[in-house]
């Protein structure tokens, strides 16, 4: 198992390095010049050249890469953990990512946990009752939830639960404008509020998470339910389940065996979805005014903010690789044959 982990981590590192270099060159193919966005109000030739010089864009590409990695004499770079400075905000990209990433991680992680806890039993109910009404209902739910765009559900939830019913808080971000956030320790508002001994802020943060989490859970549960239902149904038709039934094992134990076999592919899907949602939650972040990493990434791309784009891609990729590694390990635990 240890060798397997080392091998997976090594492959992940190679992927990360390759991606870092590829992204560096790819974003320079974007069809606009970041210097021209900066000069905005004064796009004279002198101002434009000045902006290019300030951004280092007047240097050869390899020199720029060297500066980015920190192997040239121009200062700290990526190898020393410095992601550079945003060309839009003039703030260090690393600290900006540290601010925005926890917002998304908190949203996506809570949503995935709830989506998982909802979807597995729902998918099992469908698989254990093939052809019955409950199975059909599960099938329809999986189809319906997974096929609707999240921003649409988000706007609908805002209209119904905030504007019409008044149950939910306004889509104004993580906290009400009148509430001061706790000092940032982990960056996760729910954890920081508890660490700061502010349960009122904790509950307010939860309250503001209800609608965005509900939106994501609804959308995410669709494919997970479908996956669990199909894999479970397949497992229930397999030889070992037939043998278990013939051997007279209780149905609950047989279902547990089948679930274990069904979980491996479902976990893969969850892992892929999680990695995707780190950047893909942007629409939900946008609807609920949450300052997450997805919004940051979109702003960076639209502003051609190279250091920010590079930083976000790198961090999300690294996180995705960690998640995939975790999924592989869980997969290996469920099915030890994979290690070999």
């Amino acid at each position, binding site marked *: 198992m240890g060798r397997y982990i080392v091998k997976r981590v090594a492959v992940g590192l190679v992927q990360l390095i390759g991606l870092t270099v590829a992204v560096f060159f790819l974003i320079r193919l974007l069809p606009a010049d970041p210097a021209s966005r900066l000069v905005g109000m*004064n796009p*004279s030739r002198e101002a434009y050249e000045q*902006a290019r010089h300030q951004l280092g864009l007047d240097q050869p590409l390899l020199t720029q890469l060297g500066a980015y990695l920190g192997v040239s004499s121009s200062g700290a770079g990526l190898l020393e953990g410095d992601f550079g400075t945003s*060309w839009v905000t*003039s703030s260090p990209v690393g600290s*900006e990512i540290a601010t925005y990433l926890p917002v998304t991680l908190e949203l996506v992680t809570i949503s995935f946990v709830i989506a998982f806890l909802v979807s597995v039993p729902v998918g099992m109910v469908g698989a254990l009752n093939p052809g019955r009404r409950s199975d059909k209902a599960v099938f329809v739910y999986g189809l319906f939830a997974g096929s609707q765009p999240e921003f649409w559900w988000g*706007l609908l939830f805002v209209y119904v639960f905030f504007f019409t019913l008044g149950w939910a808080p306004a889509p*104004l971000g993580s906290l009400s404008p*009148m509430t001061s956030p706790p000092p940032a320790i982990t960056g996760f508002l729910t954890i920081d509020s508890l660490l700061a001994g502010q349960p009122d802020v904790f509950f307010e943060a939860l309250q503001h998470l209800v609608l965005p989490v509900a939106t994501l859970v609804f959308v995410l549960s669709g494919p997970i339910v479908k996956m669990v239902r199909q894999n479970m149904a397949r497992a229930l038709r397999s030889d070992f389940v037939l043998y278990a039934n013939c051997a007279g094992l209780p149905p609950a134990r047989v279902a547990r065996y089948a679930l274990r076999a069904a979980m491996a592919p479902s976990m893969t899907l969850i892992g892929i979805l999680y990695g995707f949602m780190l950047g893909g939650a942007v629409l939900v972040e946008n609807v609920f*005014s949450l300052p997450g990493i997805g919004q940051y990434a979109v702003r960076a791309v639209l502003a051609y903010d190279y250091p920010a784009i590079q930083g976000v891609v790198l961090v999300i990729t690294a996180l995705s690789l960690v998640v995939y590694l975790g999924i592989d390990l869980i997969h290996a635990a469920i099915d030890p044959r994979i290690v070999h």
Partner: protein
Amino acid sequence: MRSFTSLLCAMTVASVVAGPAHAETAKTILFLAEDVPSGLDIDGASASITTSQTGMVNIMEPLFGYANKGVNASGIMVPDFSKFEGRLVDSWEFDPKTLIWTLHLRHGVKGCTGNEFTAKDVVYTYQRGKSVSGSTPVGWFLANVASVKGFTADVFKNPAARTLNPDEVKAVDDYTVTIAQSEPNALFLPVLTIFGTYIFDSTLMKAHATDKDPWAHDYANNVSPASFGPYCVERWEKNQEIIFKANPNYWRGKPAIDRVIMRRVPQSSNRLVILRTGQAQLTQNLTPREFDSLRGAPGLKVEGVEGNESLFMIMNFKIKPFDNIKLRQAIAYAIPTEQIIKTGYFGQAKPWHSIVPSIYPGYAETPTQYPYDTAKAKATLAEAGYPDGKGLDAFHDSFQLTYPAEKESTVGPIVNIIQSALRQVGIPATLNPIPLAQFGDRTLVKRDLPFALNDYDKAIGVDAGYTLQLFFVSPSKGGIANESDYSNAYIDETWPKARVETDPAKRNALLASMQEQAMKDVALLPIVEFKTQYALSDKLTGLSWQSDSSERFFDLKLQ
């Protein structure tokens, strides 16, 4: 399963018990914005972004401003562009022989930390601008446009030229400053009202300077542009919110609103519903349809001003077939202005009869006009050599009507109207939304967009000459915002004369002739001037408008 149920129950109960938060207190307002400032340095990367300018103009203070003209029919205080008033300046004199402005500064003006404003702050601000050390040299640019002596393009090539000399800007004593011009130029006072010339608190800025950043750009961009304005930064979380607190030392008196919370709500529909619930007091940048839906809503009002926002079309002079003047004129006759006003702006716009904002000094309604007339459009198209559009298919790429994709909700309905109208006369227009940054790059720097629609670029210097210089003088002669790559010898020769003309009547006549020339050439096609609109609580009064369209929180009062 039990843990999930408990969590869900806890979350639901919490939401029901707590209910919606109530933002409004006695002297705090919640302002919902499309974005919050991403930087606050006037020479920084965010200087051209309107939301950043909103932060700058409420924290910093100018030397000059415009006197108030009164409240318009909609309830907005508008400026009198013919009357300047001193802000940090108490009184001033100009000597036309020496071209020196002597500014007598106001006494007893204090910033947020209690530092007192003196002549050294003015000198510091101009020296900082001349250093061109920021990523966008806006301070230098505006001083250059106002012909402040020494602010030439030489500073970019010659580091020695970046030092401010006493014969350019000088502190005569603690409360007297002289600023010299290199030539007579009526733009001096209008330019000194623009945010990029606002004055820094040099004591605080110097305290945050470093060897690497001697002009404290990082401090201005990430903490505050220290100055003497009505508000100070209480808290600032980029991408989320900025809270302004009243400067108790402000020279015009402590602002009536103690705190302004500017919160980012990117979805305009959410800004609308939050405002309707009464949890916020002010918002802008809704779509015309959304503003229209709020008219008559209980507890709310929509106020608008015919300011300097406009919709215009760019047809690039250097790209075929737009080098054909008859084709440009045919397109001009084919634009259904009234339909655009009715459908695109819900009546909150008017036809534009020149290429300069109609409220600006020096504006002249030109004799040449292009009223909507499809028969005339077809006839002119035939004169252009393309009867019924025959032969135009060869220019498919040129007829991609480009507009910023981020403006889809406002410009989207309009481009569809224009596309249909053009096809009706035989012009094969297609639509091409592109990202705003790319749009800016291609219109302002590369100047390679053949055909485009723009509703956001505007000249914030309140003067016809300022607009004409930026948008219509040849790029090689200073027309830095010349998006059509237009070049005309008469305009290029006349602007230098108009710039130094000291007789206002003669200057206005020259500016009027330049406007007529540009209209004849369809240098850009003016379509409509639309209202800048705001939606606000009916308890909020005192909203004022300035040419940068940024709200001045000092003027607001909460009943």
